[in-house]
């Protein structure tokens, strides 16, 4: 089972803000139980939207400045970026469908 890519303060601007397709960033920490529970759902989302949307993770403990920049005060938090801009966010453990709905709001469903 493939793991999700990790982004850091150093790579965030290139991988997330510079991406051509929308990117979902999972703000997490190793000690966070609900964040671990979210992992299978995020992997499924990455598979479902393969080629259309990227899903990456960012450790808030190791990358505090990014978390502060986007006002992430609680985790897990999922932030959706498109063409360098923050478009939407979800806080707390959530379902596949809620994440999918956040993504689908950005684009019409495939025919």
């Amino acid at each position, binding site marked *: *089972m493939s793991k999700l890519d990790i982004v850091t303060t150093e790579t965030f601007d290139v991988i997330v803000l510079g991406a051509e397709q929308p990117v979902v960033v999972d703000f997490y920490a190793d000690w966070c*139980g609900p964040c671990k529970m979210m992992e*299978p*759902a995020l992997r*499924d989302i990455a*598979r*479902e939207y393969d080629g259309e949307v990227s899903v990456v993770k960012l450790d808030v403990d190791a990358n505090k400045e990014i978390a502060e920049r986007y006002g992430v005060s609680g985790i897990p938090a999922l932030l959706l970026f498109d063409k360098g801009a923050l478009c939407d966010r979800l806080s707390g453990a959530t*379902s*596949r*469908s*809620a994440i*999918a*709905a956040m993504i*689908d*709001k950005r684009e019409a*469903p*495939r*025919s």
Partner: protein
Amino acid sequence: MNAFHGNAAVKRDVLETLAGSTETPVAMAADQQAVLAWAQEMGLPGDLTLLLAGLARHSERGAGKACYDVLETVEPGADLSAVMRQWLIWAIGTMLVPVLSTPGLRQAADTVQRLLGAASPTPSDWRRVRHDLACIDVSDDDDGALATLSAACWDLERFPGAVDDILTSWHQIFNSRLHREVEWTEDVRAAFRILLRDATPQARAQAGPMPEPSDEIATRLYKTRLLDAYEPLLLAKDETLSRRGMQILRGPRAEISAFSDDALSGLVQRISGTPSAAGGLAHETCA
């Protein structure tokens, strides 16, 4: 996939492990990936096994006995790949639709049932229905039902983990109802949170050491001990507020247990309609 790999000895071993166990067996209580690995080992579909584990965990009979009762009905060699979808069609029709209050949601439930009964829905089909559901405005009463329908709109063979979303959102229906019944408004919640904060050091001291988060059974026992410790401390402060608060903290356990046992009965019925490798009973027709 043939149940128990068509081997009666595998089934016998599983049932022997489950017999007499009142707690969820390790292979069914651990994280989702462990359940899926166990399912593969036993020749059982992952989605169905996650459903069984999720329902059994809340059964009045105890998880081990509930799992035993269901798996006992499975014929070695039976093809159970369609059972999860058949169960969902049945569960939506008999347990979800009757509690819907938003008229448009009944029509959406029909659409979801048809999709679940279709021969081979494409990824676009699932996605289109999810998108349509996300556009429906529902009353607060139907939030959980809408989330449950959306959670059911995934190809469960590809994404078996979505079964956990289905059960979580179904439980949310009972939680929402409880919140309404005890008039759990933001003001009440805030007042109760202050009571809880003040009582926490004493309650924690009484409940004893906190277990590792990974130990599910110990964590559940600890939570029960902690709630037992909170109750007299809070009632001594403000009885009316505390009774409402304790109801919320303890959750609608009886309702979730009753739902789980009804759902398990429905699961047994769907499994009983599944043909074994030798022919057996006729397939149940999807709506």
